[in-house]
């Protein structure tokens, strides 16, 4: 071995700092826990600064909110007063036009189920919110996208702003909005417009930039003015991509409207889920959750057809006929149409689910508790507070002694040395570091080690600039006094991401190998990606009650999908020529997977991991509703107390963690892609 690689040097430095911190623990306790005296009252500063700003724009905000009340009430009234046969007929007619018979059937069955559930009025309230917030979001997002396209100078800041808007957790900006607009549905409306605008802006910009240069040049040479070029040529030519934006915008708006229900004050379907969950009526909350899922799927599939390039349009006369039937049915049965809220076809089912669930949980109480406690005591807790504190006679049956610590380090050192001897020094050092982290626990890692470790990792992934950025951002969290909570968030999301990576990677691999598996996994993935975050809480809560383990499961269920998808995609997208070359060289199926497909898929899989991390952070905040500690909880608490400073600071800290993780993984993916010449 002549020269040490960049990775080895970074790993060795991190190891040295970590070892030093552990060694000096007794002498200098400030190395472990960041002294409270050093913390700046950043949260209060942010709070008072924000409150000053908010006070300034509050009058115009209130004016805006009273203005927005009109279209909202109008939408509410229209959706509420229209007889349900007409609304269903109109939706089915539209579904036929967009996607033919399958789509029309889907709409009919879906809306029929909603009607039968008795949640029709609440659903219409939710839809009213969506129907006002989506046009708002489309307008704002479209305008931002077009402006960023027209003025290259604002493009970089706009991109950065969109990144931030999507990494800052949803709950975090509910708090300032609450202060600005007061309680009520308008807050949910505006929050969902803010949340749904970025995907629209992104796709508009992307679509406009992806137009072939020659098409733009042809419009110029035809003698069009800039406005003519934009509206007659560029925007229509980018229509497919823009429709992808519309689809994502709709889904985001729906998801956020439901999350915003936690503010309350509006009898919508999200509120219904929350209410029934709090009352532990899981049958009913599952039913309400199902209604949300039906709407999500219908909206997604129907708007999704717009973005399909090979879309064919179906006969409009059929649509008119369906609509006509709806009108006639509404007229004929006008007096007899029952109040849509009075249907309760599934009430007995819901009750039975409740009863069945209680029976199931009480019958399997021991097994369920065993699972929950097993994971908690043997996996999550050691990760969080380390072997030295988690191993107790009460749970593990013995006490963790310093001798055991020494043995752990000794074994790790031996394995590390062996790896170094085999020429994989970096890997060996990483094993040693991992042993140290297990011994200490993520939530109690010494702060100098975290700063140096993340800095070193960033340096390897993206060079000095990324390293500087990561360290400065982390130091901000440290100084603002949110450090412990940030580490707690890091631990829970880290544990979930790790579990997702292992499990999702395995499922992805299985799906890549066997088309049969993929045929089963794919619709489940589609489903999981369509469901609004909120709904994930219901089933885990039903079985495992409130607690960290339930949060862990909910995060996993949501965040595992990209890992599966990208792993499979990467592994199956190997160019045919490479496969043929490997086959011609005589590779077996397994050798092909290990030597050709996996290396080629590495950048794609890393991108999947990246998505999984971002998903996990997004869900972490929602999971605070069912009991997690850390930043998510702070954000949720801030919402309850209308504490703008805490809400914003904790939200920012969360965004910082997500941002750093995102950049590091992207850096590695980029490096792999370059190495493969892609």
């Amino acid at each position, binding site marked *: 071995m002549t020269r040490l690689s960049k990775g080895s040097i970074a790993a060795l430095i991190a190891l040295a700092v970590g070892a030093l911190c552990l060694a000096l623990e007794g002498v200098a306790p400030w190395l472990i826990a960041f002294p409270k005296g050093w913390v700046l009252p950043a949260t209060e500063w942010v709070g008072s600064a924000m409150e000053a700003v908010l006070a300034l724009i509050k009058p115009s905000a209130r004016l805006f909110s009273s203005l927005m009340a009109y279209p909202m009430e109008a939408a509410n009234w229209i959706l509420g007063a229209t007889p349900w046969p007409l609304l269903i007929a109109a939706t089915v007619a539209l579904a036929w036009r967009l996607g033919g018979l399958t789509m029309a059937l889907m709409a009919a069955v879906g809306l029929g189920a909603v009607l039968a559930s008795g949640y029709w009025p609440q659903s219409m309230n939710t839809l009213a919110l969506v129907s006002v917030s989506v046009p708002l979001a489309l307008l704002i997002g479209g305008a931002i996208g077009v402006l960023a396209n027209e003025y290259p100078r604002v493009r970089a800041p706009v991109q950065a702003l969109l990144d931030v808007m999507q990494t800052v957790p949803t709950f975090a900006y509910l708090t300032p909005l609450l202060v600005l607009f007061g309680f009520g549905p308008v807050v949910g409306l505006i929050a969902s417009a803010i949340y749904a605008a970025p995907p629209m802006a992104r796709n508009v910009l992307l679509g406009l930039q992806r137009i072939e240069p020659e098409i733009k*040049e042809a419009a110029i*040479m*035809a*003698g*069009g003015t800039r406005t003519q070029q934009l509206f007659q040529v560029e925007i229509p030519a980018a*229509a497919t991509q823009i429709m992808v934006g519309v689809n994502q915008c709709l889904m985001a708006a729906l998801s956020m409207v439901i999350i915003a229900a936690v503010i309350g004050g509006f009898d919508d379907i999200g509120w219904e889920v929350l209410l029934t969950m709090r009352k532990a009526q899981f049958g009913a909350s599952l039913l309400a959750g199902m209604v949300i899922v039906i709407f999500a799927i219908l909206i997604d599939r129907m708007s999704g057809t717009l973005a399909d390039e090979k879309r064919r349009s179906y006969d409009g006369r059929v649509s008119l006929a369906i609509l006509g039937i709806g009108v006639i049915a509404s007229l004929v049965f006008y007096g007899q149409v029952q109040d849509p809220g009075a249907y309760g076809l599934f009430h007995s089912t819901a009750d039975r689910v409740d009863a069945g669930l209680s029976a199931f949980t009480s019958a399997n109480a021991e097994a369920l508790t065993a699972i929950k406690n097993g994971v908690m005591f043997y996996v999550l807790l050691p990760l969080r507070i380390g072997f030295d504190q988690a191993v107790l006679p009460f749970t593990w049956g013995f006490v963790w002694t310093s001798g055991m610590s020494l043995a752990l380090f000794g074994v790790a050192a031996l394995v590390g040395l062996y790896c170094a001897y085999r020429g994989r020094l970096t890997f060996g050092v990483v094993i040693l570091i991992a042993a140290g982290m297990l011994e200490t626990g993520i939530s109690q890692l010494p702060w100098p080690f975290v700063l140096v470790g993340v800095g070193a990792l960033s340096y390897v992934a993206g060079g000095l600039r990324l390293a500087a950025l990561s360290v400065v951002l982390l130091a901000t969290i440290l100084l603002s006094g949110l450090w412990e909570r940030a580490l707690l968030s890091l631990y829970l999301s880290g544990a979930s991401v790790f579990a997702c990576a292992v499990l999702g990677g395995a499922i992805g691999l299985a799906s890549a190998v066997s088309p049969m598996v993929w045929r089963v996994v794919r619709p489940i993935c589609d489903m999981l990606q369509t469901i609004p975050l909120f709904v994930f809480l219901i089933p885990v809560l039903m079985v495992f009650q409130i607690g960290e383990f339930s949060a862990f499961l909910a995060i996993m269920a949501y965040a595992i999908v990209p890992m599966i998808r990208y792993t499979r995609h990467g592994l199956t997208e190997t160019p045919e020529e490479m496969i043929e070359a490997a086959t011609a060289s005589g590779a077996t199926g397994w050798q092909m997977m290990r030597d050709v497909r996996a290396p080629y898929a590495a950048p794609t899989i890393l991108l999947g991991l990246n998505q999984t991390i971002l998903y996990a952070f997004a869900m972490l905040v929602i999971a605070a509703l069912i009991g997690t500690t850390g930043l998510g909880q702070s954000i949720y608490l801030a919402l309850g107390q209308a504490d703008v400073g805490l809400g914003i600071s904790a939200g920012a800290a969360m965004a910082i963690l997500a941002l750093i993780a995102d950049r590091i993984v992207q850096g590695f993916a980029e490096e792999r892609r370059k190495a493969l010449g892609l």
Partner: protein
Amino acid sequence: MSGQATPAITCQNVWQVFGANADSALKRALSSTGSADEAAALLRAEGLTPAVQDATFEVQEGELFVIMGLSGSGKSTLIRCISQLLPGTGGEILIEGEDIRAASPKRLIEMRRKTLGMVFQHFGLFPHMSVAENVAYPLRVQGMGKKQRLAKAQQVIDLVGLGGREKNFPRELSGGQRQRVGIARSLVADCSVWFLDEPFSALDPLIRRQLQDEFLDIQAKLKTTIVFITHDINEALKLADRIAIMRDGKIVQIGTPSDIVLNPVDDYVREFSKDVAKGQHARVASVMQAGSDLPHGPDDPGLRRDMTLDAALARCMELYEPVPVRDKDGALLGVVNPADLAAALQVDPAA
């Protein structure tokens, strides 16, 4: 060359430099160095890209001017300077005597509507418009009514042989048909200066030849001024009145097809014409020597100045008697008529 009439296009020391602060960098480089080459070297050393360097030429009205070069030689950049799709960094560009670089945005739009037309390598068709709508688009931006512009578009669509395809969308057409749409669209507004940026490069060889022939027919009818870009020497020789050859952003030679083939200025140009059947392109005039004391004998093959060398050779060969063909031992196998030899070597007797 430049006569008394105003040339259709005049380029005077045109530069296009890419990179930060290209304008001031070019000014500095030109004032601090003596020649264009030194200025370009200085710009490159500063990390800028001089994509077009000091291009100077004129195109006469009705002339078919071909700019040829390998990819990356700056030919597409140059045509984009002239059509002002790129601003140009230095120099003067006159279209029918008017300085297009100094034109206001409004005037530029006006010129594009009335004077300039352009055809693109990858067609640049609007995917959301039918053939008829694509072709009529330059009229639409001028505010012409729908009926009127579709009627006008129909004429050009028929001219390029696409009648019956008006309602199709670009994705439903073959490559050759798409480029016909592109050509029709650039012709619909009756432009007098026509830019074609490698219009046939993306097509199959057979379709390419067919479109080249049709293009020549259209040009014979319309007599517009044309700047045509290509990387194919045979295409250039077939179409051009004059050819400009570009290399690394510089124009290295301008001349008629036979100039280029017979008197290449350097190895780069020679390399291009190496694979060209010179006999098809060079004319008798290019090898003719002055002289008047030749007696008018009986064995005059009847050569004219504008005959191709191939044709002239065939005429001369006709003067010879048939000659013997033998095997390796010297036994007579048959006879060959030298005129047949010459005729067999000609590629296309129709030319």
